[in-house]
């Protein structure tokens, strides 16, 4: 009820009090599922992660490619095969094996092209994460793809939680076979190096890693082409 009355006020406010040329906030409808600012995220991060309906978007501008956003908002496809928190979508079979009950996963709202452009532009202005955490140039652009792949599938165990092609790999983390289209390379490198600082209390562990590993892994992920069989 409180949420409802707040959005009602926002709605009234925007129609009555804003100057005639001002547009309503394109992100207004996102707030029912996404945190859009840091101070909406409660102190107890573990509980937040288990209960939140959708990923936090307070630093979307440092994370996503704008072109991808425009496209995805018109035709959203699943990014997290296990949902936002896998624990809400697990079914345990009679053999004791956990699987994701895919029909319990939410379909994302979609938007027309004009809306998608406005929303994407608004998202790109969100950069509420400590600037030092996703520094420009975190990805130097010249890692070794082959070593990166070896690290991903074998030496560093990333494959346990991430798919590097549809249906192959772990399902508790976001798929990474579209990362070259979806994510900014500086974000990828920063996230591999310091996941617990960018996404506090994530179930992606912070693994001790040399910068060379980080660069190789980023180059590998940037090389994945979702249109192409690996």
């Amino acid at each position: 009820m409180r949420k409802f009355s707040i959005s009602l006020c926002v709605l009234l406010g925007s129609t009555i009090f804003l100057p005639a040329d001002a547009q309503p906030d394109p992100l207004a409808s996102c707030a029912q599922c996404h945190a859009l600012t840091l101070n909406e995220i409660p102190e107890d991060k573990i509980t937040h992660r288990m209960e939140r309906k959708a990923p936090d978007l307070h630093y979307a501008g440092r994370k996503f490619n704008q072109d991808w956003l425009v496209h995805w908002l018109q035709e959203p496809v699943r990014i997290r095969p296990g949902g936002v928190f896998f624990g809400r979508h697990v079914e345990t079979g009679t053999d004791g094996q956990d699987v994701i009950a895919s029909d319990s996963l939410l379909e994302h709202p979609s938007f027309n092209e004009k809306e998608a452009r406005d929303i994407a532009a608004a998202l790109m202005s969100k950069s509420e994460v400590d600037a030092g955490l996703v520094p420009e140039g975190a990805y130097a652009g010249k890692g070794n793809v082959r070593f990166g792949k070896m690290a991903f599938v074998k030496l560093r165990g990333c494959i346990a939680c991430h798919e590097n092609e549809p249906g192959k790999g772990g399902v508790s983390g976001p798929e990474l076979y579209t990362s070259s289209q979806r994510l900014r390379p500086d974000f990828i490198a920063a996230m591999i190096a310091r996941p617990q600082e960018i996404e506090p209390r994530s179930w992606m562990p912070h693994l001790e890693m040399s910068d060379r590993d980080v660069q190789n892994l980023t180059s590998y992920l940037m090389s994945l082409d979702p249109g192409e069989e690996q």
Partner: protein
Amino acid sequence: MNCTGLFAATLLIGLGYSAVAMAEPVSMDRAEKLYDTYCAQCHGMSRNGKGINTVGLSVQPRDHTDTKAMSDLPDDQIRLVIEEGGLAVNKSILMPAWGEAMSAEEITAMVSYLRKVCKCGN
């Protein structure tokens, strides 16, 4: 006591309280929640080693309900493997390090929680 004094006193009590609260041992309920977030993705919601990520995984996670196998692991080794990952105890890299995700108190609670799950407290 004037208003400012009262405010300062309340603030001090508050600070003292939170400092104490931070050093306090972590409850079993909290450890269970941490397990559900960090460990169940591989070790399973039923703690049997059959989490959602294990299909196709080259080394299968430990079954934490296996009383016999778990009682062979000393507390020190369990602590080390949680803090630094599989490689630190000559096991698979697929068991990640959680030392940056959990505090020392939380890891201590996690060791006790695992002892509860395996019914092999020592």
